[in-house]
Each structure stands twice: as C-alpha cells, then as structure tokens.
C-alpha cells in the first residue's frame, strides 16, 4: 500500500506489560503518545507512518507533472486542489509520526538518502493526461481501500490522521474517474488513450497492496497490534471486485485475459502482478526512482536558505521583543 512491506520490529519488553498492552488493544482502546508501548510497536509505527507520509509527498510529483498542461482551467484548478490535499496528507502523517519521538527533518533525511521508502506506484511515469485520470481512479482508489480500515487502527494520532485523510480521498478518486470517463466517452483516439493508461497502470496498482500473503512474513504481529487491519490479498481482492464494474461501465478492458467472475467464491479471479518487477522497483530500479529522489533532494536543498532565513528572522524578532520588555 502507501506503506508496503513494513517489517515488524522485534520487541523485548516485560511480558506482563506486553500482555496488559495487548489487552488494551483487544478491548478497542486507543494508544496515545504518552502511554507505555512496546519498543517494537513504536518502531514499526514510525516506519509505517513515515513511509505513508513520504508516499503522499512523493505522490505529488507524477500528478504535479500535469498541472501546467491540464486541458482546461477547471481541470487545472481541480488537479491543483487534489495535489495540495496530498501535501496536507503528508503533513497530517508526519505530525502523527512525530508523536512517537522522531522529528520530521529526521524522516525527511531518511527519505532523501534512501533509508526510508515510499510506495512503489510513484516510480511509474504519468505520460499523458489519461494517466492523470487513471491515477485518481486506480491509485487513489487503492489507497482508499487501505486507509478506510486504518481509521480504526490502535494508535490514536494515526487513526485521527486517517480520518482526516479519508474525508478528502473520495474527491480524489471521483475527479480521476471523471477525467478518464470523459476520455473513454470521447473520440476513438481519446478512448484508446484511456485504455492505454489502464493497461500500463493496472498491475502497478495491484502491487500497491504489497506481496501476496504467503510471502508477507511481517503481517501477524502488526495485525495483532492493529497497525495493519487486513491482509494484502484481502485488500487486493476487494479492490479488483470494486474496480472491474467501473471499467466495464467505461467500456474499457482490464488487461488480464484470465480475469473472471468466480461464482463459488463470490469474487473475481485475477492474475497477480509480476512480483519480480515489484521487488525490482522497491530496490530502486523502477522507471522513475532516480527522478523522484532527485526531485525531492533538489527541493530540500533549494529550500534550505528559505527555511534558514525565516528562522533567523523569527529569532531576531523574538530577541527584539525580548529586549523591549
């Protein structure tokens, strides 16, 4: 998902405290920043919320790429508002992670030097306007699948950040579906572009949920702690079941010849993405990994004098006020 392959950290805490902590979680209580928590819980959450935050921030790049080239002023204003929301999501999440004892600058530096990850999906390019529709429809659609259950996560600040995020996501998915629908209902060339965008983004979207359950070794502890609410395969299945009829309505074809309704299971059967490609992208070899990290590093470096200047100004003002008192 926006947080993929989060390794649960081992915990070496007093068994009695651990049991009491687990009992609170099982009773549906929220854990708050100053409460006692196992070190593993804290570290796993920092990694997961941090990766989620980084994904919101890096996720602005593929869409930001089309703000200046949106086909109408209205589409441009909508896309601008959407991308601005994603910046907000990043900030809600950084502030949730900071309550666990890491600073935003530390997390930023870990993103910039590759010690922390962001979602694999943002290492794919947005080649044309149809891709902007497909990103809103599929990528935000997949994100919603994961974020809705996370509103009930055990960590209070994370849960509250997810509630804010979810309130804003439905706009994102709808505007994307509206873009691609307009193209699917347009000229034959426009429809071809819409189909092409779906072809390229379908499997990368399925990868967002992370590896198949049989290969994801870190889920059990996180699910016990209610940091992870569903398995990867559960969410992927839900996403496929929801998206197929939406594609059918548009007259577009999901690029999977083996996609088929399974009456007995009550779900669609579908082909898994190429997991070798997924692991390769995670390792840094996707089409845009280098670009994305370079863009974030440049923004951080170019903004340094502004951050320093504003802080120097604030300190000077405070000193002057102090002297006058």
């Amino acid at each position, binding site marked *: 998902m926006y947080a993929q392959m989060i390794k649960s950290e081992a915990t070496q805490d007093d068994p009695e405290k651990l049991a009491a902590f687990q009992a609170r979680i099982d009773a549906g209580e929220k854990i*708050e920043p*100053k*409460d*006692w928590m196992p070190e593993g819980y804290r570290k796993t959450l920092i990694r997961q919320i941090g990766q989620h935050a980084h994904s919101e921030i890096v996720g602005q790049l593929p869409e930001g790429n089309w703000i200046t080239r949106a086909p109408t002023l209205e589409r441009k204003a909508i896309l601008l*508002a959407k991308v*601005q*929301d994603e910046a*907000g999501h990043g*900030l*809600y999440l950084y*502030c*949730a992670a*900071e309550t666990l004892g890491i*600073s*935003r*600058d530390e997390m930023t530096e870990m993103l910039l030097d590759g010690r922390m990850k962001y979602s694999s999906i943002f290492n794919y390019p947005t080649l044309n306007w149809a891709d902007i529709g497909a990103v809103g429809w599929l990528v935000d659609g997949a994100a919603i699948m994961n974020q809705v259950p996370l509103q009930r996560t055990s960590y209070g600040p994370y849960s*509250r*950040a997810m509630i*804010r995020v979810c309130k*804003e996501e439905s706009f994102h998915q709808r505007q994307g579906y509206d873009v691609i629908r307009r193209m699917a209902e347009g000229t034959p060339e426009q429809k071809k572009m819409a189909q092409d965008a779906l072809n390229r983004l379908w499997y990368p979207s399925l990868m967002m949920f992370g590896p198949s359950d049989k290969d994801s070794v870190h889920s059990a502890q996180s699910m016990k702690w209610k940091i992870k609410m569903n398995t990867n395969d559960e969410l992927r299945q839900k996403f496929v079941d929801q998206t197929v009829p939406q594609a059918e309505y548009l007259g577009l074809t999901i690029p999977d010849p083996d996609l088929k309704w399974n009456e007995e299971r009550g779900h669609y059967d579908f082909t898994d993405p190429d997991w070798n490609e997924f692991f390769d992208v995670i390792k840094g070899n996707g089409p845009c990994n280098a670009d994305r990290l370079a863009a974030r590093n440049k923004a951080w470096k170019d903004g340094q004098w502004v*951050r*320093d200047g*504003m*802080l120097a*100004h*604030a300190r000077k*003002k*405070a000193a002057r006020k102090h002297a006058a008192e």
Partner: protein
Amino acid sequence: MKNEWPLWEVFIRGQHGMSHRHVGSLHAPDAEMAIKNARDVYTRRNEGVSIWVVEAAAITASSPSDKGPLYEPSESKVYRHPTFFDIPDEVGAM
C-alpha cells in the same frame, strides 16, 4: 544551533459556536507563519472560523500513570449527577 522549525499545536473553532479543538500539529518559524500554515493544512474545506496555535514545547500534559490519583476521587461522587436524585413525577420537570 539546531535549524528545525519548532513544532506548533493547532486548535480550530468549527463553524457552529463550539470551542477550539485540537486538530494536529505543524512546523513553522514563528506564530504568524504557524497560523498561515494552519490555514493551508487544516482548513482547506471551511473547517474553521478561528485558529489558535501554541508552541508544543509550551504545553504541559498530565501523565497517563497519574490516572488513578487524578480521576478516581470523582468516581465515588455519583451525587454530582442529577440522575442520583429521585424526583416525584407529580412535581413535573426539574
């Protein structure tokens, strides 16, 4: 000198004459910028009519381990709730 902008806690009053509520935090060099950033981060959809910001470092919070001494004394004072008292139906609403 550490050059990270300080952390501010943000409180927002919604539209409906309610009190300010904590909504989250953000970084800003000073209070004025914290208000401007809070406007962008927390009120993009008319969520508020008034913003308070306070430096996180200036907040003192109670400790979870003080829960007993702080809150248990009021548990035995049920008579503070109006439902503690039986009022005869005949006297009407009270």
